[in-house]
């Protein structure tokens, strides 16, 4: 069975994929659907959802269109999730690969470094970084990448360490291939599936982190995000609960979709392990 077929037999994973594709489509089309942007005041504040045909989800505390906010918020969530994950991979994969492949002092040094970052409470570090670097889209993405790479490094190291002892890698040494070539063309391609699975789960975690930072008021002040919407509506939870409720559902669905996809990929990559997974 091909990878795709195995993936497609997992109902949860397919549902996750459909949800994610919808969110991606919404994010891409945001400027088309709401060309005015999410910040414009369009009506009186606290307009209850489903009472005005033009503003199906009502307005927030300042009279801004909630639907426009949700649609534009999808952009920042996905963007930060994706870019910070790519950055974390760019730190974690080479570090873990070098540590695992060369061992000895390289490994010792790299792992002490990784352990240090793993010991630091990562959300607290993200807060400190964003607070000190000033909240911008760039600093938020960077902060999330900085707190998320250690598990990647550990995973890649473990994979590389087990792969480098495989006989086909030893055979490549005997064939006279260079270390770099062996690492790049023999070892890493065989470690790619767990990295892909982890990356999809990391995008989910990154989206949660971004929304948490925005919730605390550490979002980029020029960009509408789901976390910001919840944070702004927090104080009016008693009178207008739906303002915090809807962005939360958006985050929940997106994160859930990514988790489902990650698990689906994991099962598809490791068909024999399927039963033991949630």
């Amino acid at each position, binding site marked *: 069975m091909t990878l795709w077929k195995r993936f497609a037999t997992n109902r949860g994973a397919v549902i996750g994929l459909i949800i994610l594709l919808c969110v991606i489509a919404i994010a891409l089309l945001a400027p088309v659907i709401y060309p005015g942007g999410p910040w414009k005041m369009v009506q009186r504040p606290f307009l209850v959802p489903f009472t005005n045909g033009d503003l199906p989800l009502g307005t927030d505390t300042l009279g801004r269109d909630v639907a426009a906010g949700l649609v534009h918020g999808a952009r920042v969530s996905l963007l930060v999730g994706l870019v910070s994950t790519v950055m974390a991979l760019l730190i974690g994969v080479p570090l873990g690969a070098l540590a695992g492949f060369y061992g000895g002092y390289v490994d010792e040094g790299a792992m002490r470094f990784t352990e240090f970052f793993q*010991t630091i409470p990562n959300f607290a570090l993200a807060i400190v970084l964003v607070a000190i670097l000033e909240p911008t889209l760039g600093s938020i993405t960077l902060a999330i990448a900085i707190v998320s790479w250690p598990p990647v490094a550990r995973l890649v190291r473990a994979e590389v360490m087990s792969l480098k002892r495989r006989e086909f890698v030893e055979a490549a040494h005997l064939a006279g291939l260079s270390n770099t070539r062996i690492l790049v063309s023999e070892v890493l391609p065989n470690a790619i599936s767990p990295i892909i699975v982890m990356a999809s789960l990391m995008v989910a975690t990154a989206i949660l982190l971004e929304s948490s930072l925005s919730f605390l008021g550490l979002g980029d002040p020029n960009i509408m995000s789901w976390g910001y919407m919840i944070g702004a509506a927090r104080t009016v939870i008693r009178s207008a609960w739906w303002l915090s409720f809807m962005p939360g559902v958006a985050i929940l669905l997106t994160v859930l979709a990514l988790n489902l996809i990650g698990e689906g990929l994991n099962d598809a990559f490791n068909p024999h392990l399927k039963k033991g997974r*949630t």
Partner: protein
Amino acid sequence: MSLITTILGRLVKAAITLLAIAVLNFFLIHAAPGDPAAVLAGEAGAADPLFIAQLRERFGLDQPLYVQLWSYVKNVLTLDLGYSFRQGMPVYDLIAQRLPATLLLTLSSFVISLSLGIAFGVAAAARVGKASDSVLTTIALLFYATPLYWAALMAVLVFSVQLGWLPGFGYETVGSGYSGLARAWDILQHLILPALTLGLFFMAVYMRMTRASMLEVSQMDFVKTARAKGLSGPVIRRRHILRNALLPVVTLAGLQAGQLIGGAVLTETVFAWPGIGRLMFESLEARDYNTILGVFLVSAAMVIVFNILTDIVYRIVDPRIGAKS
């Protein structure tokens, strides 16, 4: 290696880690845009030139960088975390005042999430493939994807605002004058929602891990041996599978402790819980960097203590570690 030398080794490592975090803090202050003194004083402090001048002198900001670093680290080592202009007291006192509330919250949360997570994980694994397993794993999947702070808000909305079962705000009823048991009961009621919502995500993590680990261990050879001896299913699960399956869960729980303390910033913010997380949030609004960095350092220290504790637990559970080689 004996337990004592392990603990000693871990303490040395912990000290080095804390030192490194202090150094990191120092460079973060310098990485911030603007005058480090102004950064430390916070925006509010910028209006007070006298305070800034004091800071400049205290940190020797006209000195070379390494001298500054040394004096900063020395201060941290003597538990001098600086002064919060905003709150009008030393950061150390501020944190000491707020720490017990955070410890109460995170520890209860940890205990709740770990015990429930393991219990549900074991239950799900025992019913693998059945409807109750699907229900449990689906709930875990949902908790796993729910933003912490949003779960907290929704819990306040449902259990406090709508149903009125539990208080959704603060540490205890202000001005109630309770003491002794009555006060403990009052605090407990205030604790339930924050501790539960903070623990939800971690409960999901531990449950998934326990379930997967139970299923993995149950495929191992020694479980077959146990069956060949004629042991009953429950005895095998309890004596052979569970103990082996919990090892990775203990490791994970230790690693996750750090996240728990990070999550407390969000939970304490939502519930106005007077701990160091809430303090961090207030300092963010006030741009009180000195306090933010102090809280950061203390939370890292908490994680380190926690990791040492899990290490010890792990060694007690697994005879192979420490005895080997």
